[in-house]
């Protein structure tokens, strides 16, 4: 089982321009597990609304794919620029981009084109990183300048990327006639990190968005996006569900749960009874129904959350599959599990493979899927959709 020393926490928050349904900025990120590598791209399409979103989506998707294949930056830029559709009003094809490529061990390359300068923060202060100017000659002889940086991330370093909707927010108001500006956003982010050094990427990005929205007097004048990358100690979570195939392994399961350093969730009545028996603990069975329709959560000393098994994890898979963004809405045990999952970086799924004979009755009113399939689905969603590092172990 591979264990990385650090985790890369990435999140992006966005607001669309007043009156637009779709944001014209696009942020994409991809974790390549085999190479222990992360690529993130922010692109701002020309104009706003659907047209801008299409330009930015095309740009971000191409940028990710070419970076993944380690194509040279000038070639990547050339292809992007000559592929984008031409705007009928302005007769140009255009979208900005910032590509961040983080390799194993923190080695980082950033390529930026026409976005506000990305910000590098270490120990609550902005550190200036040397940037190399790269001239790219496009079709028709037009020249564009891009900036390339190369450095190594250390623990607790942060990279902040914003669209011009942030730096230009508040433009034309009495307080900031020329907009919020690069310096103000740097100071704002640093102050927030000094206030709370453990602030998550999700929370920090949201705070920046809220501030920009307030600068625009709650009517965003442009699409607003902020992405944060935080290189930090991983938050670990163990989710244990199902009894082991062989009773001899009950003790092993209990030891794994007891010795795990991180938060612990147990899903399953029999599983929790095995742990209670092996570890000499008692279970306080929940008896208060909520509107989730799931059996209530129980309590056990040393375990952060104890829930029912297959119905709850089935609902967890459903929530993860259908949710948009990173915000889990609602209440109940499945929502509580999702919140813990999304708040963690490295997730260990321990899946007992014993089949519950009583669940195989064909007259049961719902389909009780085999636990290992549901847990595999959860693992896949966490890895692919939420970029979590997931280890799954069948016992």
């Amino acid at each position, binding site marked *: 089982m591979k264990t990385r020393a650090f985790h890369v926490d990435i999140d992006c928050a966005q607001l669309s321009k007043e009156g637009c349904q779709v944001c014209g900025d696009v942020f994409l990120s991809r974790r390549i597990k085999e190479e222990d590598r992360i690529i993130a791209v922010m692109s701002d399409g020309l104009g706003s609304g659907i047209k801008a979103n299409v330009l930015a989506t095309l740009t971000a998707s191409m940028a990710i794919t070419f970076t993944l294949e380690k194509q040279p930056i000038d070639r990547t830029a050339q292809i992007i620029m000559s592929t984008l559709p031409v705007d009928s009003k302005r007769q140009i094809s255009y979208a900005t981009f910032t590509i961040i490529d983080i390799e194993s061990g923190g080695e980082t390359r950033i390529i930026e084109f026409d976005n506000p300068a990305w910000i590098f923060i270490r120990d609550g202060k902005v550190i200036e990183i040397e940037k190399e100017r790269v001239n790219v000659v496009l079709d028709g002889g037009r020249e564009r300048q891009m900036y390339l940086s190369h450095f190594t991330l250390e623990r607790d370093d942060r990279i902040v990327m914003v669209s011009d909707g942030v730096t230009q927010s508040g433009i034309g108001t009495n307080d900031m006639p020329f907009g919020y500006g690069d310096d103000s956003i740097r100071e704002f982010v640093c102050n927030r990190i000094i206030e709370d050094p453990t602030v998550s990427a999700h929370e920090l990005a949201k705070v920046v968005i809220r501030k920009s929205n307030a600068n625009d007097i709650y009517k965003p004048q442009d699409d607003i996006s902020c992405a944060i990358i935080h290189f930090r100690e991983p938050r670990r979570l163990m989710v244990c569900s199902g009894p082991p195939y062989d009773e001899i392994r009950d003790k092993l399961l209990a030891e794994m749960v007891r010795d795990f350093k991180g938060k612990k969730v147990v899903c399953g009545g029999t599983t929790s009874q095995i742990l209670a028996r092996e570890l000499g603990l008692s279970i306080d069975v929940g008896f208060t*129904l909520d509107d989730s329709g799931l059996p209530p959560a129980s309590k056990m000393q040393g375990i952060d959350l104890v829930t029912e098994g297959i119905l709850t994890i089935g609902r967890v898979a459903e929530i993860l599959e259908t949710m948009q963004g990173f915000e889990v809405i609602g209440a109940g045990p499945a929502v509580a599990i999702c919140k813990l999952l999304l708040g963690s970086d490295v997730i260990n799924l321990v899946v007992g493979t014993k089949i519950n004979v009583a669940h195989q009755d064909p007259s*049961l009113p719902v389909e009780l899927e085999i636990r290992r399939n549901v847990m595999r689905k959860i693992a896949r969603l966490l890895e692919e959709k939420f970029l979590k590092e997931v280890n799954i172990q069948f016992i």
Partner: protein
Amino acid sequence: MDEKKIEVLVCSGTLCYLMGGSELQLLSECLPPDLRGKVDVKGSPCLDFCNHPKNGRPPFATINGRCIAQASVSLLIAEIRKEIKG
């Protein structure tokens, strides 16, 4: 002297919950006035009755340790009355 309360354990296992046990979690609220204060209703981890067909069909509950199969709120109230009468 305090009268000893009747102990009702409702199985919170998946199968019992699915087969109607979720309703039983409202038993305390559904007790008639004359039984209130005389009954202690609690949830229990799976009581393992479902793995032995001789016990009957879920949902299961126990009244002072006695297994009640296909439990419903009305059946449990009737059984509690029987228990009180002895």
